[in-house]
């Protein structure tokens, strides 16, 4: 049986943990707000971009650019995988790593080689331990990314795709659905499948005067399309991470309260027991004196 002092000490420890989780919760909330703002700011760009690209790509022969053509034989695939740099965010990292592992296994069962480009420390640590084939890893870059960094990444993929080093590029990131739900999502980056547009806007595309030609413009836009998708993944993944951490820390704080409550009960019981035992002693002692 734990002594009174032990229980008190434990209560203190749990309370301190609670302070930390509470603080982390608030930090995550603040970070979530700023990244969510960034995501909102990106939406008009992404929306407009998809619209224009859809307009351009519709009715165009996919043969005009190798990035649009599916390779007949796929022997080596690249996976761009996003995790968080830190833990303490519930099952966020586990979920996305599991999804990636499952996907990689599926590819390997089909006799394809997998190489990985990793963003986030947790994923890097995991796959390095696994001895996976890692092309590149980026850690601690969330919040510091800008479009030129992404463009560079895109350029790397494209060069390697065109030189037949890799035959497909996919990415897995955690999509932000709402505060309570984030989901690992797989997106095929290369070859590009242009966003489909609705049939009713079909005629609008024909009216455009393009300078230079529509084909040339499309070719210029394709790498940007990849960048836009990667940028989007970065933002979504970051928002998801903060949301996951927020709810994980909220749960932890609540659990701390529960534990403190239970421990207080135990403490009170033990205290009462101690008092009773002491009383019994005194009474027993007094009786012994009167008898004597």
């Amino acid at each position, binding site marked *: 049986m734990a002594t009174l002092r032990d229980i008190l000490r434990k209560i203190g420890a749990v309370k301190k943990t609670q302070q930390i989780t509470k603080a982390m919760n608030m930090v995550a909330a603040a970070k979530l707000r700023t990244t969510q703002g960034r995501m909102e700011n990106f939406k008009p760009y992404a929306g407009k971009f998809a619209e224009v690209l859809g307009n351009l790509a519709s009715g165009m022969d996919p043969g005009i650019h190798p990035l649009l053509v599916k390779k007949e034989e796929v022997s080596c695939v690249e996976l761009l995988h996003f995790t968080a740099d830190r833990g303490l965010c519930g099952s966020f990292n586990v979920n996305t790593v599991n999804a990636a592992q499952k996907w990689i296994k599926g590819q390997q069962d089909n006799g394809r080689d997998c190489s990985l480009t990793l963003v986030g420390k947790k994923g890097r640590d995991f796959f390095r331990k696994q001895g996976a084939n890692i092309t590149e890893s980026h850690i601690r870059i969330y919040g510091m990314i800008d479009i030129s960094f992404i463009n560079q990444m895109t350029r790397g993929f494209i060069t390697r795709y065109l030189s037949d080093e890799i035959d497909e590029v996919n990415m897995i990131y955690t999509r932000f659905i709402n505060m309570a739900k984030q989901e690992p999502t797989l997106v095929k980056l290369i070859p590009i499948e242009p966003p489909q547009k609705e049939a009713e806007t079909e005629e609008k595309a024909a009216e455009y005067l393009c*300078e230079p030609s529509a084909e040339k413009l499309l070719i210029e836009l394709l790498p940007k399309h990849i960048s836009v998708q990667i940028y989007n993944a970065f933002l979504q993944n970051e928002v998801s991470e903060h949301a996951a951490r927020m709810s994980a820390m909220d749960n932890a704080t609540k659990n701390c309260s529960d534990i403190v409550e239970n421990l207080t009960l135990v403490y009170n019981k033990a205290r009462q027991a101690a008092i009773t035992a002491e009383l019994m002693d005194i009474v027993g002692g007094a009786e012994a004196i009167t008898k004597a």
Partner: protein
Amino acid sequence: MGRLFLEIVTPEKIVVSQEVDSVVAPGTDGEFGVLPGHIHFLTGIVPGELRYNTGTGKESMAVTTGFAEVSNNKVSILVDAAEKTSEIDAERARQSMERARERLGDRRSEDIDTLRAEAALIRAIMRVRVVEKAI
């Protein structure tokens, strides 16, 4: 005929969103001007100066690569980065140009660092040019 609605969007934010009288932008095939009633138009944007007339005054901006779409008196410019000329610090722009030049040195390989430095240099030169013209 009405006026034009100009929207300049970067991945980070919407930089400009207002009604204007005219826009002049650096296209892939040379500078082009847009007035109300322009035909539907699509073109690439190269780093350079973008000017527009708000009716009360003229504004100038430095833009990087991207593309422009004109439809129904709406001009949408999507670029990687855009800065108002009045907000560019001329001294800093010049410094960063020098820095980029130095970093580039006499390397002419195709590795990523070189490409990055080149991109930075182009941006810096363009910023300096736009600023110096304004002064």
